[in-house]
């Protein structure tokens, strides 16, 4: 079951809890099996099953507790690219410790984190992320840009504070 690991990782990032992540994955697989006839073969299977997982999460106790909210302005694509600056030194940011980068991911807004994990960790395309999260591709790109920028800033602050 190769997708089990990907779904579980995403579920754990959403719920922040092992038991709830397991419940979420289990329910996602059950729904996927029941709903397979509704899957359209010309579309992405991965986007479809991640969408089931995300929707299942939103109606779960953990999802209702989390109330992920992002101000509308945050999805502004123009704004997402407005203040991104990298320097030769920032190349080293990417080589920061795994724990530091993970801390930065923990601190991200949930909607940015979802996009970043689906793209950078799970390897979904922009189109697949758009389908999985039910958002336009432009919003996917702006969330990715903002999420990565926030991670970079978080790591820079932590490294600068040493």
């Amino acid at each position, binding site marked *: *079951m*190769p*997708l*089990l*690991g*990907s779904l*579980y*990782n995403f579920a*754990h*990032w959403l719920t922040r809890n*092992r038991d709830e*992540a*397991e419940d979420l*994955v*289990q329910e996602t*697989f*059950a729904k*996927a*099996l029941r709903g*397979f*006839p509704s899957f359209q*073969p*010309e*579309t*992405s*299977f*991965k986007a479809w*099953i991640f969408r089931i997982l995300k929707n299942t999460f939103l109606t779960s106790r953990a999802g209702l507790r989390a109330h992920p909210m992002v101000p509308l302005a945050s999805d502004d694509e123009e704004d997402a*690219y407005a203040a*991104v*600056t*990298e*320097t*030769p030194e*920032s*190349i*080293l*940011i*990417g*080589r*920061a410790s*795994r*724990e530091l*980068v*993970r801390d930065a*991911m923990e601190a991200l807004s949930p909607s940015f984190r979802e996009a*970043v*994990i689906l*793209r*950078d*960790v799970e*390897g979904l*395309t*922009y189109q697949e992320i758009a389908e999985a999260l039910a958002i336009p591709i432009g919003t996917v*790109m702006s969330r*990715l*840009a903002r999420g*990565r920028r926030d*991670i*970079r800033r978080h790591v820079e602050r932590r490294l600068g504070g040493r």
Partner: protein
Amino acid sequence: MVCEAWERGLDRYIDGELPESDIAALEAHLKGCASCATVALSRRELQLAIREAGATFRPSPAFRARMERATKRRKPAMRSSLWLLPLAAALLAGVGLVVLRGGRETAGDFGLREAVDLHVTELASTVPLDVVSSDSHTVKPWFEGKLPFTFDLPELSQSSFELLGGRVVWIDQMPAAHLLFRVRRHRVSVFLLQEQAGVPQSLRDLGPGSTARSFRVLSFTDRGLRYVIVSDTGPKDLDDLALRLRGRGAA
């Protein structure tokens, strides 16, 4: 700062989403623009770090077993819809993904994609390797204690290959040795992973003449280690290096 004309294109390029028609223009720009090249490398490095840090949570063996049992239990209940079984099996195995999505990269490509990404990053990097030496007796001991396995390196003094150095990398959450060689003006990455640790399928299914994102890729096992060679040099060079590396692995 990145040149305004390429701000969004750069992210698309790094994400493999830039249209084919724009790639050559951007790559030409990167060769002449140190600022954009720095940004591209910086973003690529961050993306790799996120990939490594984000793949944090793994299902426990108990949960995995429970899911597999549940799947088996479910199948007999679906006898009235027998046509669904192959589809359900494909769903659970993730196989449908490959069939339905054409030539796109999939979860099954993950290890291969990571290896090629690491090679590309190394080509663009101005940051020295973690161990910089052409002496195999310096490079090999450097890895001791950093990897859960050891390996030997071939004698290259009579060959056209030169060892440049190496570093520890992570591929699909597994520690691996990344060795960098030079042959004439080409650089060649060799990744060594422990075969028994569960090497990604995409790194095991590479037949002769395999390519990924225009790079030639060669994979083989030897004495418990998986070797993956990535380069833009000719296939004869890859075969030659593989021949020299074979017989040097040690689990």
